[in-house]
């Protein structure tokens, strides 16, 4: 892979892509309920997640935001007692269909966790492993994809000389960006982020936030955040969840600015103004 080709996707290129906020649903969620054993944590949520946009899920802890996120890439399957009902269509396929091949779904729907979780391997191996496991083995192609992903998250210049160093030696913010690169390397169309900045210091948090903004347009991003200011800064759409009788419910969903400035529901108004939650 020569240098010219390798620089096609630089940091700047992530910004290009289809114009954002076209109200084209990428993921259509209908009547999604999640329960663990006897306890229902999320009740009949319906909303559309628009292509190329950033959708923020806000609301107090325990109202089912993370469960909603995990249902979309079927990570809920890992919890033996979890039961998910409803439909969620991604590109015409119901992702909640029990017969669906979850491994290929998870390649299309990447996920970033609250705590950065790079594998205890080298930086290079962290990116190489998911590629190899998904059948991409050609040496030059692997190298190219690794470099592209690292450029996309703005990590390439920082780590290009130490790709064979342990990933766990990176700082928290770098680790989180590596995790994002690891998700991007599989070229997903949707990225689910579960409070990706909350375990980071303010500076690193700012860098990751900026990165998420750059992903707009090329990826459909669903992000859970407790930081209302952050949601306001980066999101195009916002969904407000709240507990009603100990069950998480979607209270209001809409474009981000109207939801914050002129909320329709009194609960939303109280939460975004800091009066409750």
């Amino acid at each position: 892979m020569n240098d010219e080709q390798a620089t096609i996707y630089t940091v700047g290129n992530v910004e290009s892509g289809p114009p954002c906020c076209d109200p084209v649903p990428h993921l259509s969620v209908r009547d999604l309920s999640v329960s663990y054993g006897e306890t229902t944590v999320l009740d009949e949520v319906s909303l559309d997640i628009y292509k190329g946009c950033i959708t923020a899920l806000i609301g107090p802890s325990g109202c089912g935001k993370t469960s909603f996120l995990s249902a979309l890439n079927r990570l809920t399957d890992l919890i033996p007692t979890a039961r998910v009902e409803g439909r969620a269509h991604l590109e015409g396929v119901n992702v909640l269909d029990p017969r669906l091949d979850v491994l290929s779904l998870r390649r299309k729907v990447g996920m970033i966790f609250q705590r950065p979780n790079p594998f205890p391997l080298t930086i290079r191996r962290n990116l190489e492993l998911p590629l190899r496991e998904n059948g991409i083995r050609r040496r030059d192609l692997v190298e190219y994809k690794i470099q592209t992903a690292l450029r996309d998250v703005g990590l390439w210049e920082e780590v290009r000389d130490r790709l064979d160093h342990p990933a766990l030696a990176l700082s928290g913010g770098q680790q989180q960006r590596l995790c994002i690169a690891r998700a991007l390397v599989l070229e997903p169309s949707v990225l689910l982020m579960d409070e990706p900045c909350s375990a980071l210091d303010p500076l690193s948090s700012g860098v990751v936030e900026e990165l998420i903004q750059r992903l707009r347009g090329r990826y459909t991003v669903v992000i859970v955040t407790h930081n209302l200011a952050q949601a306001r800064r980066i999101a195009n759409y916002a969904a407000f969840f709240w507990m009603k009788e100990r069950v998480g419910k979607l209270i209001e969903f809409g474009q981000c600015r109207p939801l914050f400035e002129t909320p329709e529901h009194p609960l939303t108004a109280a939460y975004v103004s800091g009066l409750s939650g």
Partner: protein
Amino acid sequence: MADRMFTVLIWAAALLVSAAFVWLLGDLVWRGVDRLSFSFLFSEPLNAGREGGIAPILISTLLILSVALATAIPLGLGAAVWLAEYTRRGGIFGQTVRLSLDVLAGVPSIVFGLFGYAFFCSYLNMGFSILSGGLTLGCMILPIFIRTIEVGLSAVSDDWRRGAQALGMTRAAALRHILIPSAAPALGAGLLLGIGRATAETAALIFTSGYVDRTPESLLDSGRALAVHIYELSMNVTGGDQAAYASALVLIVLIIAMNAGALAFTDRWLSRRITP
């Protein structure tokens, strides 16, 4: 003052333990080293072991140990993975298996010997043989091996399991590339415990691999393990004491060498798991 006393007591305990070991080793070297020579290691025993060497016994010991490890490692790893990754935490079946393993780990080796005799020698018609002895030893070290690895695997962070799943990796791939390498120290510890127990075992082998001191011609031949040889020389052969001490010295050196080997092996594996 009380603190001082405490410090002294702690030091005394540590010294006492090391002194016991040094004394034991010193005694062995003192009484056995004269007899130890190149020809002792590489010649056949003569006159019931009073004279000659221990070559066939060393061969039998290593063969028995190989059979034991060759069965215990794959079985143990598989069972540990099943317990740690595939049983629901707190599930009845998994708990039952865990409890049985803990009970088995505490069963005296003579009982394993009797079981091995009844099952491998008689029922499966393997007779007194290296194979019977090795398989019996394999059964004996399995419980502790499984539990050590299982605990190691359970201690591996769940973040990595979820991370691997979220990247569309199969469970097998996550285990192979991330979880098992991360549990390598536990694997090494289990291996060390197993090798130590197996090499020093006497009771379980008398009934299963027998005590013929010829060089075994196949795995179905009977063979005498080093520990059995020492027991035989010191208990049943008058004038065999010096040879017994020399053999015991060889046994200790063998165990230390194998421990070092197992450590080096897990270290190499550990270097694949890269942590700062």
